[in-house]
């Protein structure tokens, strides 16, 4: 969600020249860790805080407050030349755990499947693991196959998928460019296959969508409070522009 945070900061600074906002990327864990250490005012996160993180915050005398700022969907992306159009969540789980290793097993060409993922510090990684690989089951101990390529950035994933017809990847809808092919998803066999879009995320017919958060250390005050208010109001127009899904 760093793109969104940057766009918000730039637009807000243009409207309020007296305010300076600097945005740093690195993954949800990075931002929350910085908020816990007291080095930032706002931590952007594409997942909820973990128990150990809020524990660490309280140990530092900080009460983290959660604000939902936008919605997002995870798109499953493949190379343009890949004939596969649709998959169920359990097929994707089987692909990412290594049980399905050839595209012909899911109706594609006879090609090996190359798995791409974000690094383990990305909120998208944790979300994908819980919701897709483990299919939302808390008792599941499934993990990414050890053959999964961990890419340090969204750009790394799109570069590889653009040039490799074997690859499958996932990323936030906001990062998907038109030269990548999105896969329609169904919750289960027999249910409708839905492509990710603003409408299908908002009406929750698309199976993997989520909220994006900002965390503050305690109730926001002064400039930080003004900024948050602006994000929840006027700032929402930027959300749609970047391919995320606005709150209303």
């Amino acid at each position, binding site marked *: 969600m760093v793109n969104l945070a940057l766009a918000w900061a730039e637009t807000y600074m243009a409207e309020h020249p007296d305010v300076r906002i600097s945005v740093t990327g*690195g*993954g949800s*864990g*990075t931002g929350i*860790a910085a908020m*816990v250490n007291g080095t930032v005012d706002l931590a952007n996160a594409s997942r909820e805080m973990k128990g*150990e*993180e809020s524990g*660490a915050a309280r140990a530092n005398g900080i009460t983290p407050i959660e604000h939902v700022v936008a919605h997002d969907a995870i798109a499953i992306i493949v190379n343009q030349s890949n004939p596969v159009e649709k998959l169920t969540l359990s097929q994707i789980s089987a692909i990412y755990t290594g049980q399905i290793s050839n595209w012909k097993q899911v109706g594609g060409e006879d*090609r*090996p*499947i*190359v798995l791409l993922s974000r*690094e*383990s*510090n990305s909120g998208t990684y*944790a979300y994908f693991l819980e919701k897709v690989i483990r299919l939302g089951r808390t008792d599941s101990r499934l*993990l*990414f196959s*050890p*053959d*999964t*390529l*961990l*890419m*340090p950035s969204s750009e*790394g994933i799109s*570069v*590889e998928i653009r*040039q*490799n017809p*074997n*690859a499958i990847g996932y990323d936030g809808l906001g990062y998907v460019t038109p030269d990548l092919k999105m896969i329609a998803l169904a919750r289960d066999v027999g249910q409708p296959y839905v492509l990710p879009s603003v409408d299908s995320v908002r009406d929750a017919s698309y199976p993997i969508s989520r909220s994006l958060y900002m965390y503050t250390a305690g109730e926001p005050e002064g400039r930080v409070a003004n900024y948050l208010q602006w994000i929840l109001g006027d700032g929402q127009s930027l959300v749609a522009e970047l391919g995320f899904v606005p709150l209303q």
Partner: protein
Amino acid sequence: MVESMIRVLGFSTVGLVLLIFAFLLREGLPVLSSVSPESLLGQLWYPTFGFFGMLPLLLGSALVTVTAILIALPLGLATAVFVREVAPSWAREILKPLIEVLAGIPSVVLGFFGMTVVAPWVRNTVSAPTGLTALAGGLVLGYMALPTLISVAEDALDAVPRSYRDAGLAMGATQWQTIWRVVVPAARSGIVTAVMLAMGRAIGETMAVMMVTGNAARMPIGWEALLRPVRTMTATIAAEMGEVAKGSTHYRALFAIGILLFLATFIINLTAARAIFAKRRKGGLR
């Protein structure tokens, strides 16, 4: 006065290295209290789920580094021989600074080049499932190790006395024979140093490796491992250190990887030093 200042500075460098190592030990060793040594040498690296097996990372670094050296050694040695022994002096004047410019290319630029050019080339040439492989990492790293290897090897050739070459030629040997049978063997210890320094450069490189090797923490076993993704120790530290909570097991495990890396470079440098030392005792050059 000046002498004692230089002495203080010299000792402080050594002291700093020792302090860094002490810091690594202090931050990394406590991992043993929460993870057993056997599981640290396990085959699964899923740090966010309590699996801290470092074997795939260790072997991944080793595979990429050895590949890089196997690529860089013949190229680098041949270049050094050409620049020092064969090229006319005007060509040498152009080549030497060019090689030094090579060393100045930022690794992230080479990484981007590797990701967009080398990796697709590897995939198409060897028809691997993906081009982000140990081989792509070895190619990029080998290229990055070249300037070090060439400069140090060239210095070693330079230190071979003129009389050796004259003697070789006077015995009726061709220039080619003189170079490969007299000059290169005489400079052997310097060339070993060059290889060791290049290895140190390769094993410690992070950014470019992270961009081209695919970072999959799988065990690189079997001949096809070269054509599959690997995850190196340096890439693991770089990718994960930003996120960990200070003092957590994951944090300690990353520092433990740092200790392994430190030991690996230490052993490499020690081997290099011994190679030079042994040669000197036998009355060889340098």
